């Protein structure tokens, strides 16, 4: 009996030591590419089901091929005709690898758009070989490497671009993404910082910096990054996500308000400031949205636990500013109220109630004007 147990222990130990095959280096890239690619809609799935695989027709492919032919004609024929002057009157057939770098580059772009990745890569290689100093050619070669899962070559190409063109933002940005995706957050931040030196408001660099700081547990910088992002980006899912990130950190300087069917991000700290200039921009944003929600009644509620008069002052100021921005067109009624108490909200981080003061709550309800008319 003991012998059997000993044998089983030994086999179990050997099982722990069994070897694994190495997954191909390009596998992750391919997976992520498929993750990023949206699923085809039901029409395309149905079409693929009917037409696979022998009779293949792709509208995108057709457009791409047409585009490639046009580009090849333009790049290969027209340019060479220009340089040849009057002698260019004869017809010239364009080989797949013309000696015109720009034509190769444009064909590569067209093929990449048509998902012909390996073919695109060959054209980018040619373009780079002809004009290695052109940053955009090397950059797009890197993109093609990415699309074919050649991660190391992708990075090498980006590095090559930024060595020779330290200000070339697209490559700096993609290097940032590359490092972020691979969990190298500090390196990602280095590149995002370099991007932001050139384009301080680039949304991807701002938002992803916040993500990288989150991963590094640097809360102060995370907050700063998401706030910077929200200073210039108030719509779309990324703005909503940035607000959620801040709320998770207990920072409610930005909040999301629902106005009819819209969700709007406003900077609360600017709304409650006594200087009118601070809340101007916020009220302008609110007016834009409220103009599209004319069936709604707007409620603005101001809280200030220290001084009721300040809460009232703020409510009146916000309404006046909003009315100025709304203009003469029709809009729903605006109601204001104020309280000498803190606003109680539920924290999304731990579900606990939080007290906010000073604070502003803005929401809308369907306007009941029609009902009143019926009642009368």
């Amino acid at each position: 009996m003991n012998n059997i147990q000993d044998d089983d222990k030994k086999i179990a130990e050997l099982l722990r030591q069994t070897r694994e095959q190495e997954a191909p280096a390009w596998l992750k890239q391919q997976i992520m590419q498929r993750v990023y690619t949206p699923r085809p809609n039901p029409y395309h799935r149905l079409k693929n089901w009917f037409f696979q695989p022998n009779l293949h027709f792709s509208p995108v492919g057709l457009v791409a091929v047409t585009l490639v032919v046009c580009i090849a004609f333009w790049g290969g024929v027209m340019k060479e005709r220009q340089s040849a002057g009057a002698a260019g009157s004869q017809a010239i057939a364009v080989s797949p690898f013309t000696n015109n770098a720009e034509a190769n580059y444009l064909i590569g772009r067209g093929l990449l758009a048509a998902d012909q990745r390996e073919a695109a890569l060959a054209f980018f290689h040619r373009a780079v070989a002809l004009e290695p100093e052109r940053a955009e050619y090397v950059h797009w070669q890197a993109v093609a490497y990415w699309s074919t899962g050649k991660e190391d070559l992708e990075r090498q190409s980006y590095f090559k671009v930024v060595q020779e063109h330290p200000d070339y933002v697209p490559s700096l940005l993609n290097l940032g993404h590359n490092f972020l995706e691979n969990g190298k957050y500090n390196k990602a931040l280095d590149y995002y910082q370099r991007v932001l030196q050139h384009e301080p408001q680039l949304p991807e660099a701002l938002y992803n910096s916040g993500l990288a700081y989150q991963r590094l547990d640097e809360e102060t910088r995370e907050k700063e990054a998401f706030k910077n992002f929200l200073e210039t980006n108030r719509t779309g899912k990324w703005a909503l996500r940035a607000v959620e990130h801040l709320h998770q950190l207990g920072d409610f300087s930005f909040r999301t308000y629902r106005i009819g069917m819209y969700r709007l991000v406003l900077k609360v700290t600017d709304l409650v400031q006594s200087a009118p200039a601070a809340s101007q921009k916020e009220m302008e944003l609110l007016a834009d949205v409220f103009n599209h929600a004319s069936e709604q009644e707007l409620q603005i509620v101001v809280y200030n636990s220290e001084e009721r008069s300040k809460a009232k002052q703020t409510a009146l100021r916000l309404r006046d500013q909003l009315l100025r921005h709304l203009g003469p067109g029709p809009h729903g009624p605006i109601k204001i109220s104020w309280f000498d108490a803190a606003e109680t909200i539920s924290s999304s981080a731990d579900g606990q109630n939080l007290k906010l003061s000073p604070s502003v709550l803005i929401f809308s309800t369907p306007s009941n004007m029609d009902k009143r008319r019926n009642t009368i």
Partner: protein
Amino acid sequence: MDYSDEEIVKDVLAGEKQLFGLLVDRYQQPVYNLMFRYAGNRDEAADLTQDAFLRIFERLRLFQADKVFFPWLYSLAINLAKDWSRKKNRQHRKMFLLQQQAEETQIDTAVHEDSENRQEIEQVEHGLMLLPSQTREILILRYRHGCPIQDVASAFKISESAVKMRIKRGLAQLRGILLDKESLQS
């Protein structure tokens, strides 16, 4: 900085798709190997691994946050491998063993460092491939990946006692296979 799988899943579901790459980093190796054991060649294993991760990504919302992520992922991958396997005919199985041996021979030349222990491991690896696929995968999940019985049960959607029973039987079968080999060799 170690972020749990569950935290990453939460963030991916919140819209940060790029973080799915971290899960791929963590688990592509076991999933690829699982697929390799079923498919028997690298290309097919890579394709199946891609399909598996895509399926995992698409079904991420179904993952229950109070569960452990790896067994859940593994169960999806196993189901995919089984589906694929059902579609293939028996001829493929014969090919599989031949190719498996060829692949392993390639590895052998690379890691030819060791002696007796290495031979024993090789014998166990060959023995594993002779077991029924579910028994084989249960043993691998339990011992190679160090999963607790509870997680193995969750991955295969069977009871814990059934897992224990299959492990016991699997070890007995392996013991028998190894014994046969030993006697043949001696």
